[in-house]
């Protein structure tokens, strides 16, 4: 192994999502923590097996929605009452029921934009390259029909040969080293 110091991790390939979930559970039981699964569709039970915490996308969405809604309402208030008041037959300037449609639309807009861009930012996307893309079988199958489990080199328990042998024992169909570049 010439590139020992440039190893990102070791990746195992599984044929079915059940084998993957099972392997993830076993890997965590074995004490590995820096592991990540890669699947062509969201697999039920995988987040639990990886012990993923609740994510922050809902909170970001809530903040975005509140900002859009409150900002939208008070902007309309400012325009209609302070910046450009129009006296129409003595009707109240702060005619709030008429501001509701735009307030609603801006709430939805703010929430939707923050949900999408929040999700992308938390996921660290866009990220055009990733060490796993060095693995030929990963590129060929990870977004189509196979399920992958990667033990990363930064895990304190990681040892190239032992970790590979461990994954082999979990009924993986292929094992590959992942070079970091």
């Amino acid at each position, binding site marked *: 192994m010439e590139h020992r110091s440039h190893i990102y991790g070791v990746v195992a390939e599984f044929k079915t999502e059940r084998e993957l979930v099972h392997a993830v559970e076993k890997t965590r039981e074995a004490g590995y923590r820096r592991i990540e699964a*890669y699947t*062509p569709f969201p697999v039920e039970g995988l987040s639990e097996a990886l012990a993923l915490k609740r994510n922050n996308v809902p909170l970001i969405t809530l903040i975005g929605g509140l900002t859009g809604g409150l900002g939208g309402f008070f902007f309309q208030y400012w*325009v209609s009452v302070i910046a450009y008041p129009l006296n129409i037959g003595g009707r109240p300037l702060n005619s709030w029921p008429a501001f509701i449609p*735009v307030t609603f*639309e801006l709430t*939805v807009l703010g929430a939707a934009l923050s949900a999408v861009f929040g*999700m992308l930012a938390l*996921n660290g996307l866009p*990220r055009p390259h990733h060490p796993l893309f060095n693995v030929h079988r990963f590129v060929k199958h990870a977004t189509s029909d196979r399920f992958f489990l990667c033990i990363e080199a930064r895990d304190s328990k990681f040892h190239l040969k032992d970790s590979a042998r461990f994954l082999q024992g979990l009924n993986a169909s292929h094992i590959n080293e992942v070079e970091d570049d």
Partner: protein
Amino acid sequence: MSAGQPPIDSPQIRRLSPVLGPGHTFTSVTDKISSIVLTRPTSLGWVAGFAISFSLVMMLTVALAWLIIKGVGIWGINIPVGWGFAIVNFVWWIGIGHAGTLISAILFLLNQKWRTSINRFAEAMTLFAVACAGIFPLLHTGRPWMSYYMFPYPSTMGLWPQFRSPLIWDVFAVSTYGTVSLLFWFVGLIPDLATLRDRALTKPKQIIYGMLAMGWRGSARHWHRYQSAYLLLAGLATPLVLSVHTVVSFDFATAIVPGWHTTIFPPYFVAGAIYSGFAMVLTIAIPLRKAYGLEDFITMRHLENMAMVMLATGLIVAYGYFFEYFMSIYSGNKFDLYLTQMRFHGPYSHFYYALILCNILTPQLLWFHKARTNIPLLFVMSLVVNLGMWLERFVIVVISLTRDFMPSAWGRYSATVWDYATFAGTIGLFVMLLFLFVRVMPAISIAEMRELVAETSEDHE
């Protein structure tokens, strides 16, 4: 699987066809759908269809150029009928878009599996319909190059938009709707773009799909956040879609014109929008599944379910018509009553009778299983409903405006060749965009089909 829902092949619903043809694996659905984009040669039918729709788009550009040179006087609009085709077409197109959002958001929240193979192109349909819709109010302003006046920006004149006006509500509703629909569609596409990137055979395709996929690699942590974001978008799009046609109906309902000033408009507009939208989804789905051999993915179950949604919303629309009629009598308002008489006996009564035939009578055939599973008949009926919903907007706009309060203000309206050219041109634009879409993007969500494969194989065990 949600609790209480019988598995797809259970005896309770054995009469129905499955949502996915038998024998499919992760590999087969991926191959089948991605090959349409990546390896399948461009067929003669595609080229012919694209050429026809592209020539209609050329006609649209001519019509729009002439409009910008001469002004809206080339249209048939006059005083009192200031709205005419532009608003009829705007409402029609926006309404068509609504089914896409309904399928992708509401059916997703309701955990309806049959949405999976039709949501992608239904969302694309939404985007293209909104694009066509947006053209009309923009040009109807007369000076489209001044349309930025409707957006609130700090102008040197110190002028701000009137936020109490339904016109401004419309600007916000339609632009938010367009933006959120685009986001929803794009988020759904990300995993499939990654599939296309990894399966593309040529360098340019790898680079383009790669850039669009943004480095998606199916990581479990990514999926975890992705699913949250997708669920939230569905939850946000659901009230949004109801609000958009509500706001469109406010354009009418806040006016005092007879036949417009009615509280039933918002729900009745939303039902009508979904009605015409499902009709358009059928109009697209039937040729699409035939042309690309997708009968296993868009099964009879899908067609039948869509037909049933059409029937249900059609009945709500019929209820709306009935109550418009009833209220005009019950209110004792002589202007409303006169308007109703004009619908039945006035100069545009043939439009009204055609509308009743298209929107209320014809869809009653859908009560019958035989009619719902007869594909050519279903296709014809979807076209009939599309026509009927266009007539409905024509009746609402034109009959009310030609029969105002004062006989001295009454008038007539007839569209000019430029009205027809613009309308046909937007249909061309819509069809052309759909043709391009099925060639460059997966028309069915591959990731969700894999999920369906996983779920149906579990059900068998």
